[in-house]
């Protein structure tokens, strides 16, 4: 194993600890937050910096040990930035569709509570009228 200069070791340690702690906080949030929609926030955001820290540490390590700038780890971060919002979007869409319970403090400011995109559709307007009882179900407090 190549001998690393002191500043590189410091930098790598810093990035690894930063990334590790953010990944830990993200997982902690997944367990601690009260309902599905709020739980979604923790992994989508905190894992980006968690993985980002590990990626930066990897770039520093391989660049310092081989002397050549090693950048292909950046692709991991790029792909993560592309995919994290999409998976969060799909999970949120599924949660809205299933009308999962939310905490009672949630302010629901939708003009058509219930499935969002079908509200404008005239074909299912009768169906959304049946869903008038939906907000009561949603206001059940989970905790």
């Amino acid at each position: 194993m190549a001998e690393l200069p002191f500043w590189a070791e410091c930098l790598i340690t810093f990035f690894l600890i930063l990334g590790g702690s953010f990944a830990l906080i993200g997982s902690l949030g997944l367990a601690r937050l009260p309902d599905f929609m709020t739980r979604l926030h923790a992994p989508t955001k905190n894992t980006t910096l968690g993985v980002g820290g590990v990626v930066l540490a990897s770039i520093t390590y391989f660049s310092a040990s081989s002397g050549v700038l090693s950048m292909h780890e950046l692709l991991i971060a790029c792909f993560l930035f592309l995919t994290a919002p999409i998976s969060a979007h799909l999970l949120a869409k599924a949660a809205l569709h299933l009308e999962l319970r939310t905490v009672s403090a949630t302010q629901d400011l939708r003009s058509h509570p219930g499935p969002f995109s079908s509200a404008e559709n005239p074909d299912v307007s009768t169906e959304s009228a049946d869903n008038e009882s939906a907000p009561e179900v949603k206001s059940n407090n989970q905790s």
Partner: protein
Amino acid sequence: MIKKLLPAPWLALALLIVWLLLQNSITMGLVVLGSILSLAIAWYTSRAREEEVHLHKPFRAIQYFFLLLVDIVVANFKIAGLIIGYKRRLSPALVEFPLELTGQVPITILAGTISLTPGTISSEISRDRKYLLIHALNVDDTDAMIHDIKHRYERRLKEIFGC
């Protein structure tokens, strides 16, 4: 003529950069092979894209990228603070965000931006593409939040794509 041979120059450039990053070295041969591949892929897949994307101000886009990077780091610290100090009550909200942008790509980028920045996740788009449904983790003043997003991100995206 150029437009027909090179239907998506930015896609080709992005593909070339990804290719060079994957190879993790820059030599003449790799650049040539990568250019040929990326141009061929951009040309061949142009039939699958239904609308063209015009980048009016490319340098603004780079500026936007760095702004986003800083905001993502700030978002991480904010959410971390909320998770650790979660004793006080959260006030989540579902808010409809009126879109001024048009076009698939700008809206997609805005939705992605919203998901990656502090305390908000874009969770649905209305069928007429005029509203984005946002779930906010902890917000007191929803109008201020909408104003923030409009001012900080949507205005810039509008400039970049010129729509």
